[in-house]
């Protein structure tokens, strides 16, 4: 069976599930390494399910396997949303084990192992895009948003008409510029947050319920 055919069948199965309501919308938390995806996933799950999902680290590629939690109910006043949340490995176009040694002091064996697992994590994260219904794309608002990884993720989602919310993270840092992200991506909701302090998470939840809660995929 061709890739495209298989893809169509998967989509069809998803559609059937959606129509008969057997499966919750699956929301992926995506972005480049180290932008705060797991910090955000942990906070979301602490707020709505009372548990955490993964470890956080200042060293990039901490998450190297996708992890998910099913049946998470997010409430917003009288409306609510039940979703499966997937925390994905950071997507990158390169992985250099020497960076782990030189910048973070890992020993060479550990650095090489981390790099190898990181490459597998990137492949896995991209593969997961096919079975996801919506995405919270996390960006570090202290950094340039016009990177290829952001462009590629957004392009894939837009081509399939999937709803995206951009979480402009780390706005507790002085050099953050959420306004840059807003003007860079006017076609999507951009919510400035700090996953670390929890600042403005309410606003993100409200946006999620509104944006992902629609019965059908977004027709923007």
């Amino acid at each position, binding site marked *: 069976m061709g890739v495209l055919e298989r893809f169509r069948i998967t989509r069809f199965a998803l559609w059937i599930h959606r129509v008969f309501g057997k499966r919750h919308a699956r929301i992926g938390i995506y972005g480049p390494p180290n932008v705060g995806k797991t910090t955000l996933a942990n906070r979301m799950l602490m707020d709505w399910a009372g548990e955490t999902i993964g470890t956080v680290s200042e060293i990039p590629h901490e998450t190297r396997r996708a992890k998910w939690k099913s049946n998470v109910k997010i409430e917003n006043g009288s409306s609510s949303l039940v979703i499966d949340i997937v925390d994905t490995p950071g997507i990158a*176009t*390169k992985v250099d084990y020497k960076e782990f040694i030189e910048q973070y002091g890992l020993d060479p064996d550990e650095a090489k192992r981390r*790099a190898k697992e990181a490459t597998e994590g990137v492949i896995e994260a991209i593969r997961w895009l096919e079975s996801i219904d919506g995405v919270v794309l996390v960006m570090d608002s202290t950094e340039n948003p016009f*990177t290829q990884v952001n*462009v*590629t993720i957004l392009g894939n989602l837009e081509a399939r008409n999937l709803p995206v919310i951009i979480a402009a993270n780390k706005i507790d840092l002085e050099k953050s510029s959420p306004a840059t992200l807003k003007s860079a991506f006017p076609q999507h909701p951009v919510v400035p947050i700090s996953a670390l302090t929890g600042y403005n998470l309410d606003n993100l939840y409200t946006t999620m319920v509104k944006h992902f809660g629609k019965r059908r995929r977004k*027709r923007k």
Partner: protein
Amino acid sequence: MKKEKGVSVTLISRKKLESFSTDEKIDYIIKEVSKGKILVLENGLTPVEQSALIQQTMAKIDHDTFIGIEMEGYADVENDGNMLRKILNKIFGVIKKPRMTVIGPANLLKTVYKDNNVIQTMIITGKGAK
């Protein structure tokens, strides 16, 4: 090749790119870039091709010889106010028309600056070069 100084930069026309299937295109890019060449594509890759290229790059990374790619291209300008296009986008999703893209080995090519209209890169010679 390795003894020559300097880095090869190849500009590839839209016509040549269009003569490739997606798989051929990705194979070609990986092959050239992993040999240490920098490519400038007249029209870039579709989002699906971009993610396939990233996956194949990851599979090819080998600690000391190939650490991956640097790739930068322009996103499409989609808000041109064209009504028909808006309607089609609503029905079928946004079809991004890929634009000019530069791709090179990550140890040689570094992005210095990028916004919607300018991509500035630097070629690292010396220590980075193979």
